[in-house]
């Protein structure tokens, strides 16, 4: 009860001597507190501004959904039904109740492992090939149309070919991830390498940088924003592809879980899985974007 009463006094005393050190020294404690309070409330305000609108919208959408699906004869379950029937999946993502009965967290991790391998290969191969192609006008002219055609092929269309080649579902799923996410990485890297400003090339020429130095000191940093754009598109595509691939190849991943739930008519479980997929995809995107902003700081600004 003390604080609210004291607050107006303190805040009134601050503007009168905002910068003079002696005054600040004398009233160190209260001043600090107000500053802290102000900072905390400012931060809270910021968080609220960022978090509240999406929360409100989510609540509105859930309510609309509930109202639409509550009437008898609705084909899809309302949120309340999902909550009651799939509560174990929502509340505990990491339970293990049997070899095929595990929490969605585990399933997501298994899917993520496949994505990590496939996407990792795609990133390495894509950046390497993109770098080579970007340096040669003829390679670009010859390969770019081919890549533009190949990249439009749906991930699932690759699956039969990959199953035929690998004769096993696990490497096939990984290959599908690879082949889906590699194109934007190649193309963006190549464009980034092509777009290295002539100024930087001149600097490298005057300094007589050798190929190795040019690659590490000019080419990679200069193309980094493009490369990361490709990587970001790639991670999104590979997360899209894994669900589809797992639906067909089976196994333990999140994609197969959806297919399995559909076959055993557990619609509420599917909705929970969709939420998991969406949130994980969002987090993956933010991670790559975060890495990009750390690595490319200063590069885009000139």
């Amino acid at each position, binding site marked *: 009860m003390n604080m609210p009463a004291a607050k107006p006094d303190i805040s009134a005393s601050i503007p009168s001597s905002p910068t003079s050190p002696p005054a600040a020294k004398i009233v160190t404690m209260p001043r600090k507190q107000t500053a802290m309070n102000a900072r905390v409330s400012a931060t809270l305000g910021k968080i609220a501004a960022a978090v509240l609108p999406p929360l409100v919208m989510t609540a509105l959408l859930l309510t609309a959904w509930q109202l639409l699906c509550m009437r008898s004869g609705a084909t899809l379950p309302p949120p309340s039904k999902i909550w009651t029937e799939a509560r174990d999946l929502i509340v505990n993502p990491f339970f293990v109740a049997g070899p095929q009965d595990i929490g969605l967290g585990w399933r997501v991790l298994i899917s993520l492992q496949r994505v990590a391998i496939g996407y990792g290969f795609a990133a390495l191969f894509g950046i390497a090939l993109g770098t080579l192609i970007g340096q040669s006008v003829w390679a670009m002219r010859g390969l770019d149309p081919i890549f533009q055609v190949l990249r439009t092929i749906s991930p699932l269309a690759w699956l039969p070919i990959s199953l035929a080649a690998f004769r096993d579902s696990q490497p096939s799923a990984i290959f599908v991830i690879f082949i889906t996410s590699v194109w934007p990485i190649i193309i963006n890297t190549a464009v980034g390498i092509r777009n290295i400003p002539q100024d930087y090339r001149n600097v490298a020429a005057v*300094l007589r940088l050798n190929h190795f130095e040019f690659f590490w*000191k000019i080419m990679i940093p200069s193309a980094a924003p493009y490369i990361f754009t490709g990587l970001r598109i790639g991670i999104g595509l590979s997360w899209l592809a894994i669900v589809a691939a797992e639906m067909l190849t089976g196994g333990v991943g999140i994609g197969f879980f959806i297919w399995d739930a559909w076959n055993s008519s557990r619609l509420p479980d599917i909705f929970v899985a969709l939420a998991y997929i969406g949130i994980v995809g969002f987090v993956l995107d933010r991670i790559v974007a975060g890495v990009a902003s750390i690595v490319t700081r200063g590069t885009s600004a000139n």
Partner: protein
Amino acid sequence: MTHYCKIDHVDKVFTRGSTSTCVLKEITLDIEKGEYVSIIGHSGCGKSTLLNIVAGLTRATIGGIILEGHEVNEPGPDRAVVFQNHSLLPWLTVYDNVRLAVDKVFGRSKSRAERDAWTLHNLNLVQMTHAKDKRPSEISGGMKQRVGLARALAMEPKILLLDEPFGALDALTRAHLQDTVMGLHQKLGNTVMMITHDVDEAVLLSDRIIMMTNGPAARIGEILSVPIARPRKRLELVTDPTFLKCRQRVLEFLYERHRFVEAA
């Protein structure tokens, strides 16, 4: 008689498809050691092309460049360039931009500590030590140009090539930077070749002013020696009769005899 740097009968023809344009025709110029030479002319007359040929970034179609008795036909740190748009690498700090050049040029001959000291020394020459840990995006245009100058000086070039180094700066910053360059030239005795389109700048800084005719097939129209003793003081020169006469000569050349023809 051998000269320090000789631009020997340089022609430059740009060919695109079946059409070829002659940009430079019969450029011959001798530059002495420690001399400050400016090249002035209207835009499009091939000034920058000439500088790029000396730098080795562009090949001359006919003729060549001889520097200290050796022909040069590829770029190198002995002909350091200060580019018009500074060309600092934005992902490196001010220090690292200069250090990259120092490491490359003195990687074998100087120890790590010596290279560090040399980098700082050159930043100090252009009064940029205070911003050594900043990135190019965090400093002003004039400061960037200073760092570009430090990078070029750090290579200890035989000839320093300045490609309109003050072109993109506001008048006050430009004057300040001109004084810096003048001071450094006085102190270090560099041989300098500068491209400019500013008459006052050319007269203030140069020992000789090379006036180019308009392109295509631009040639050296006139060479003017500026017989003003150094060190030169900007304010005193404003009323100096020699300065005014030189200035008038250049202006007459540019605006009466070789008036810029608005083409295309």
